């Protein structure tokens, strides 16, 4: 008798998600945990990821495991990353921690495309990066880059 085993994933904020083992194994981090954790590992903690993000990650894994050859996979991926910036960043981080290459590549590329069009100030705002250059240093950088007109 073959039963599809299920795994429970628990996010940082205590939310639990029951998924088919095959879907969970799409994350190489979880695969490793299961393989090294012994027979009792039916609940796996994912403290680096919140419930909101984890549920999206699971949605991605489900689609890619259950229908990897479907014609609409490409459009699924395109629509999947049509989310706001913060969600996208969380997806990228989650896919990095959970070792899901496909999702990491997809979200990284989408973020990269967003980066391309942003000014230096917008990058700082979006990613909460502090400007630690002195005004003199900033002036030098501006001069160096004067040919690169898009400020």
């Amino acid at each position, binding site marked *: 008798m073959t039963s599809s085993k299920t795994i429970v994933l628990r996010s940082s904020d205590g939310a639990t998600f029951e998924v088919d083992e095959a879907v969970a194994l799409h994350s190489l981090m979880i695969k490793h945990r299961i393989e090294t954790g012994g027979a009792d590992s039916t609940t796996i903690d994912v403290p680096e990821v*919140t419930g909101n993000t984890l549920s999206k990650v699971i949605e991605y894994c489900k689609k890619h495991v259950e229908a990897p050859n479907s014609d609409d996979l490409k459009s699924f991926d395109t629509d999947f990353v049509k989310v706001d910036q913060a969600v996208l*960043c969380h997806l990228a*981080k989650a896919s990095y921690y959970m070792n899901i290459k496909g999702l990491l590549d997809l979200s990284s590329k989408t973020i*990269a495309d967003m*980066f*391309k069009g942003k000014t*230096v100030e917008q990058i700082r705002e979006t990613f909460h990066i502090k400007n630690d250059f002195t005004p003199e240093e900033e002036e030098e950088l501006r001069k160096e*880059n004067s040919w690169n007109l*898009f400020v």
Partner: protein
Amino acid sequence: MSDSDVSFPAGVLEDILSGLPVKSLLRFRSVSKSLRALIDSTYFVNLHMQRSMKTNRILYFSGDSHGPITLRNPSAVTLETPFELTAFPLVYGSCHGLVCLSNGPDDLSILLWNPSTRKYKPIPEPLGDEDIIAFDQLGYDHASNDYKVVRLSCTDSTMVFRVVVYSLKLDAWQLVEQDFPSSFFPVNCYGQGVFVNGAVHWLVNQIPFPDKGNLIYAFDLATQSFYTVPQPQYPNNFSATNLGKLDGRLCVICTHEVSNVDVWVMCEYGVKESWSNLAALSMNDMITQAPPTVKPLIYTKKGRDVLLEVHKQGLIDYDLQEKRTIERWTGDASRICMFVYQESLVPLFRNEHVV
């Protein structure tokens, strides 16, 4: 952690940044000190380069002056050079985003240029005897992680060649003692070499020619020694006239029946049986010099077509499956020089950005 915390683990940030064009990365050096340190790091420059090597771009110079674009083909672009060109430039290789060029055939002084970062560095002349003929080519020495210009040159009318190598790291030339197996003279277009598989290759005629036929000589940058590469088994009436490079593979260009040009590509480096006929072109209606020659540039349409430069004249789009020319473009200018390059952050100076 909460949903509003958007700081990235380093691995993710690198993944994102390494896919960005150089222009964006140079701007983002101004975001913060740590981002600047990351982008300037050797580690990141290499990471970015590995990725951008997969995208080939065509750069070209056209006209008698450094005039405007006259060639209408979306794959090719022209960039303003940050240095002054006093003559029509000759390009001596393009490697990891660096380009080696000189101001015309009479000017033996050369410089290195990174078209993406716009940095350039004139290369000092080698000391000692004046070269009367010199054939230069840029390459990368993986053993010492150094960019080198290999110069095959002779200083007098005896036509005995010597090898001098310029190292970017040392910013100096070095004579490399060589015992050539026989007298020779480089054949390919302006005698320029082709850098493939860690070595600079020249097509040479052995003297006396044609008794002794021609050879492909390769100079390995890491071992600093010469070896020969087997040529394709072509029909008797084919005559090899030039070497080329396509997607990292060595090519031989040969002519037959006066105006036919064939391009062969060595699919597996060093394996004679892996030479394969890539394109067979009839050059009847294109005005070229004799012998007619082409230079393979890049694959397009996901490998279905190949773009070739017709020496100094224009471009040909050739369908590899149907084995025929699809389209030709000629520039309005009397001269065109095209080459393939990739974007990179590779610096030309130590501490390139330190003010």
